């Protein structure tokens, strides 16, 4: 049950062996390198590799960006969960041999992306210009032309409707020697040209202004040609740019074919970064390096011989000194491993306590199952999680969560059999109350008090297990008396109180135990205090902590509440579904309501069971003994996100 013990490893050797040793350690993936370089008491200096680190960070950033780009250029159907590709070392070597060519492809992708963006900007500007110009394409003269020495010409817009007509009338009336023409109109404006004699220019200008005339502003490129010519040249330009974009896109598509190779390069870069970060923690003098770290005891000898066999280095292994913190590696049975994710979310155990997972596992299994509490839902959850684990092959935390839910779903099936719940009461509803799902124990809905007692008995065991774990930790730390006085006293007191409820002779024994236990708590729980009276008062206050135990136990009543909630909601769904009876409308309706309702209820019940089992574990159980605050063992290893090198 204790965490895997660690050995402090120290290796020293000539600088010539430095790179080889780090490579070897990264391949072994078994040593966490501690920072020796920045400690002032060693006289060692750090390896200066900031430049290399910056370079590799730059490479990682570029490769990540380009990978994303390449995946967009060559989209492939994305699986729901991405898995690491398994590749051989020869493939890695082949890719690294082509590094120059691949980086050229990276350059191409980056450059083309920029160019395409710029060209698309130009296209948009051309399109806007074309939209502006097109309504004027019938004009057979330069739009910037303001007329001749005798004649003034305006191009522009007038608001549609009455005002335009009114302007036309007035113009014809007061300036008979003028010309007015409408080229096009839309919902808002009419595009017009007006030509008048220079003598009348001022009058007409005012007339125009009064009628809401807006002069056409023409960009400088439009000077000296007709709109039609200009449009034609715009079109030519557009075609040229589009062809350019197409060429660039083809080039980019070509370069994007190396997605898998980029992934291998990226994994190589992250692995190199990992090694450089470890390198910065290695201390050195002019010609010698010293490396210090932690290695799991069971494989420490292998690491030692691997290093000494291949490099001219001195290796020393030693046990951690008492009180020295070492990184935490957990090793649990396969059935227990999934629950590590739950403990990890709370905290990693520290190096002076036990790994709580073997204790977490059975209770989590039981509590989760009872809270879900339905055989049908258990069955569905088992199928769903099995698909995720073995079909989709999810990894990491997600896998562990699926695994403990898979386990818990069997507890739910058993719980459903014991308390007679299979999709609520779907069997009785479908058979018209003629048959019922077997109920091996009792119906919590008819006898909720009995269910509550069951829940609390489980709670008592859970809390007592937590207390026992605390006693065990105290004994491990060499404080057996603390275990007797701080934990044993509560055991005696609480069990005694429980026995009183039984009554009779046993009840009298219980009374005696309760008195003995509480007396121990009052007299000894505050034994740090020197003065007897202070000690007793503090002890009395500690005895008040008994209310905490009662609320802890009561907290387990949520098993009853959540278990009932799930199955009663299932009953409501069945009832709603069967409202229309077993008719041609009723049967499809039942199927529809059942699918949607039970699906939703399953999701919510599973979430509720997970959340509240976690709470009972974190608050009621871990509160008794677990300190946490440890650091997980993070050895120097190949840090690969996309690929795994095998063989």
């Amino acid at each position: 049950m204790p965490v895997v013990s660690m050995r402090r490893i120290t290796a020293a050797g000539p600088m010539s062996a430095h790179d080889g040793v780090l490579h070897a350690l990264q391949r072994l993936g078994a040593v966490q390198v501690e920072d020796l370089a920045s400690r002032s008491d060693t006289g060692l200096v750090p390896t200066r590799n900031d430049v290399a680190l910056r370079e590799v960070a730059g490479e990682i950033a570029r490769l990540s960006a380009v990978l994303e780009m390449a995946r967009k250029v060559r989209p492939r159907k994305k699986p729901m969960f991405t898995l690491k590709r398994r590749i051989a070392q020869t493939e890695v070597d082949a890719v690294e041999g082509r590094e120059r060519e691949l980086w050229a492809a990276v350059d191409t992708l980056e450059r083309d992306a920029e160019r395409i963006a710029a060209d698309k900007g130009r296209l948009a500007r051309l399109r806007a210009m074309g939209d502006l110009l097109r309504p004027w394409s019938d004009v057979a003269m330069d739009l910037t032309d303001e007329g001749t020495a005798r004649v003034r010409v305006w191009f522009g817009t007038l608001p549609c409707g009455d005002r335009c007509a009114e302007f036309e009338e007035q113009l014809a009336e007061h300036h008979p020697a003028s010309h007015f023409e409408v080229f096009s109109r839309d919902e808002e404006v009419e595009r017009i040209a007006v030509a008048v004699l220079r003598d009348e220019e001022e009058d007409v200008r005012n007339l125009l202004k009064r009628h809401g005339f807006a002069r056409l502003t023409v960009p400088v490129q439009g000077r000296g040609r007709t709109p039609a010519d200009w449009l034609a040249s715009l079109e030519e330009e557009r075609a040229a740019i589009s062809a350019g974009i197409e060429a660039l896109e083809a080039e980019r598509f070509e370069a994007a074919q190396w997605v898998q190779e980029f992934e291998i390069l990226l994994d190589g870069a992250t692995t190199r970064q990992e090694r450089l970060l470890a390198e910065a923690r290695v201390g050195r003098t002019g010609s010698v390096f010293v490396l210090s770290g932690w290695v799991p005891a069971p494989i420490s000898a292998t690491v030692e011989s691997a290093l000494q066999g291949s490099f001219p280095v001195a290796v020393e292994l030693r046990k951690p000194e008492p009180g020295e913190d070492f990184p935490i590696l957990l090793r649990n049975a396969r059935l227990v491993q999934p629950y590590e994710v739950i403990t990890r979310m709370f905290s990693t155990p520290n190096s002076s306590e036990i790994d709580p997972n073997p204790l977490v596992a059975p209770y989590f299994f039981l509590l989760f199952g009872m809270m879900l509490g339905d055989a049908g839902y258990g069955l569905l959850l088992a199928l769903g999680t099995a698909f995720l684990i073995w079909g989709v092959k999810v990894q990491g935390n997600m896998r562990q969560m699926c695994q403990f839910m898979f386990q818990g779903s069997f507890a739910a099936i058993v719980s459903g059999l014991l308390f007679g719940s299979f999709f609520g009461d779907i069997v009785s509803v479908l058979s018209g109350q003629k048959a019922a799902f077997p109920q091996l124990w009792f119906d919590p809905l008819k006898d909720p008090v009995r269910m509550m007692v069951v829940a609390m008995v489980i709670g008592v065991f859970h809390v007592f297990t937590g207390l026992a774990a605390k006693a065990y930790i105290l004994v491990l730390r060499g404080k057996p008396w603390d275990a007797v006085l701080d934990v044993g006293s509560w055991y005696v007191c609480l069990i005694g109180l429980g026995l009183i409820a039984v009554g009779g002779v046993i009840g009298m024994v219980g009374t005696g135990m309760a008195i003995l236990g509480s007396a121990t708590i009052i007299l000894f729980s505050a034994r740090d205090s020197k003065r007897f009276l202070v000690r007793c008062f503090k002890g009395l206050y500690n005895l008040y902590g008994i209310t905490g135990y009662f609320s802890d136990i009561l907290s387990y009543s949520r098993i009853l509440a959540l278990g009932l909630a799930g199955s009663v909601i299932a009953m409501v769904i069945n009832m709603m579904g069967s409202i229309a009876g077993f008719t041609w409308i009723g049967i499809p309706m039942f199927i529809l309501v059942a699918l949607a309702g039970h699906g939703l209820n399953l999701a919510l019940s599973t979430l509720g069971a997970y959340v509240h089992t976690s709470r009972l574990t974190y608050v009621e159980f871990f509160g008794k003994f677990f300190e946490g605050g440890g650091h997980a063992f993070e050895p120097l290893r190949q840090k690969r996100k996309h690929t795994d090198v095998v063989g």
Partner: protein
Amino acid sequence: MDFLTTLSTIFLNGPVLAFLGGSLAAVGSGWGSAKGVGIAGEAAAGVLSEKPELFGKLLILQALPGTQGIYGLLTWFIVMVKAGFLDGTYTSLTTTQGLLFFAACLPVMIVEYTSAISQGRVAANGILMVAHKPDEQSKGIVLAAMVETYAILALLASMLMILLGIHR
């Protein structure tokens, strides 16, 4: 006086009181959950505009204050069954029994309402925490679940009162 007597015979009788209790249990809890899920949802929508990849994680946090509504529905259902509204035996309810049903629904009516809103606030802050540290989602969930404890206790109180406290 006559008017008041008529009113009281219409409203102060067993079936109406029990019906009202069940109804208000569903109202209080559903109302609270709607608010709670709304509070959390607003926070989640804000975060999603920046980090759309967190959708799955935030959805779970947003769903947490929704359980109170379910507990209300549960209470309503048990009232419907126990008071005989589903099989038509409700006519025999005495005024006292009706009042007992109503009183038994009080914990759910009130506590589910307030706890759902509080839980919504905790969940909203959990959502903001997840925005910065996506790996800490389970801590946000557990913090929100601490509030839910009291919703569960209220549900238990109501349920046990209805199932055990009222003899018919």
